[in-house]
């Protein structure tokens, strides 16, 4: 069982080469062409583990964060990305909120301006990776099996396979889930959470842990507002209470309405990242 996510068979990381062939580490030795990804962990907790008292029946004080190992690996990912001037976003939502559709539209509209690479997290299939590759992005698919979220180890391995160029944008499309991904730092610069209008305006108050740490909340599928009772003002007011620091951007990836705000946010972050 995977030590971090508890899934039965661990994550499978696949990436597609320019000839369209899918590779996974088991079938394809990365030693033959080192992508130069983030370092293997070493001393992840930053202190010596060898000198603790081990007397019988003794209480040993650990005082250690449960997710210390994940957080240390996330810091390594963050340092690695920052060192290359790469903007990394952790994109989260419930399943079907429109993460991939937003990324397809973004790749179509900004593809000539920004190099966008994608790490696709799903329990199964490479469907989303296929969509993003068709949209012109370099993409790595991570299948988590029974796991319900991506963690820093999976992202480290995916970055090694993806080998994104300096100054690019890496979007980590997390497993569709408004609960579990909130806990796991991946090394991203910003957390972007999508809430589609078809889910109802109460999602921020029902899943506050996810929205509380968001830097940007995209309210998606606004082209459907005429057919719904979605209360955008209430949703925005709730978000202001739960996540006062977050920017809220309503948009429709289908019609394009509101995407200018998202592109502006993205461009600004890219500029700040390359400025160091």
């Amino acid at each position, binding site marked *: 069982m995977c*030590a971090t996510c508890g899934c039965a068979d661990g994550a499978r990381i696949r990436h597609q080469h320019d000839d369209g062939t899918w590779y996974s580490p088991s079938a394809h030795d990365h030693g033959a062409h080192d992508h130069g990804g983030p370092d293997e962990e070493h001393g992840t907790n930053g202190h010596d583990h060898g000198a603790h008292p081990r007397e019988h029946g003794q209480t040993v004080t650990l005082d250690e964060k449960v997710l210390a190992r994940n957080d240390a690996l996330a810091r390594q990912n963050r340092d690695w990305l920052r060192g290359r001037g790469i903007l990394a976003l952790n994109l989260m939502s419930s399943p079907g909120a429109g993460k991939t559709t937003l990324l397809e539209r973004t790749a179509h509209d900004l593809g000539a301006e920004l190099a966008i690479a994608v790490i696709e997290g799903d329990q199964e299939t490479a469907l989303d990776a296929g969509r993003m590759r068709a949209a012109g992005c370099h993409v790595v698919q991570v299948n988590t099996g029974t796991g319900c*979220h991506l963690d820093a180890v999976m992202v480290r391995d995916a970055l090694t396979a993806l080998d994104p160029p300096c100054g690019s944008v890496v979007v980590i499309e997390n497993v569709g889930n408004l609960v579990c991904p909130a806990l796991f730092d991946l090394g991203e610069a910003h957390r972007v959470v999508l809430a589609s209008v078809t889910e109802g305006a109460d999602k921020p108050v029902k899943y506050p842990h996810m929205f509380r740490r968001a830097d940007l909340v995209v309210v998606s599928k606004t082209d459907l507002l005429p057919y719904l009772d979605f209360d955008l003002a209430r949703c925005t007011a709730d978000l202001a209470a739960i996540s006062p620091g977050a920017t809220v951007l309503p948009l429709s990836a289908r019609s394009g309405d509101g995407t200018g705000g998202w592109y502006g946010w993205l461009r600004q972050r890219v500029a700040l990242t390359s400025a160091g």
Partner: protein
Amino acid sequence: MHELAIVESVVDAVTRRLPGATVTRVHLEIGALSGVVADSIRFCFDLATEGTGLEGATLEITEPAARCRCRACGAEFQPDSPIMLCRCGSADVAVLAGEELKILSVQVA
């Protein structure tokens, strides 16, 4: 159900710190704002520790309440939900307690 992942992380962290030890008691700290449900941890602890050095260990969980300080008026308060609003109406608050997710100590045989 990320609580299973949390218990796996506890096993991983304890095994790294105390390799080969037989652990008889585990003391965790799970704050009210941590995003982790203590009852779910209790539910899956026995299952997830089976076959590890923590198998059969007694699980103790301390659950600190949420505590905030309002950046607008300076008041300290205990929020009654994860939506942390001060009585003055401000949502600009600093979390003082409740986000803990730690292994405090273990007892080894």
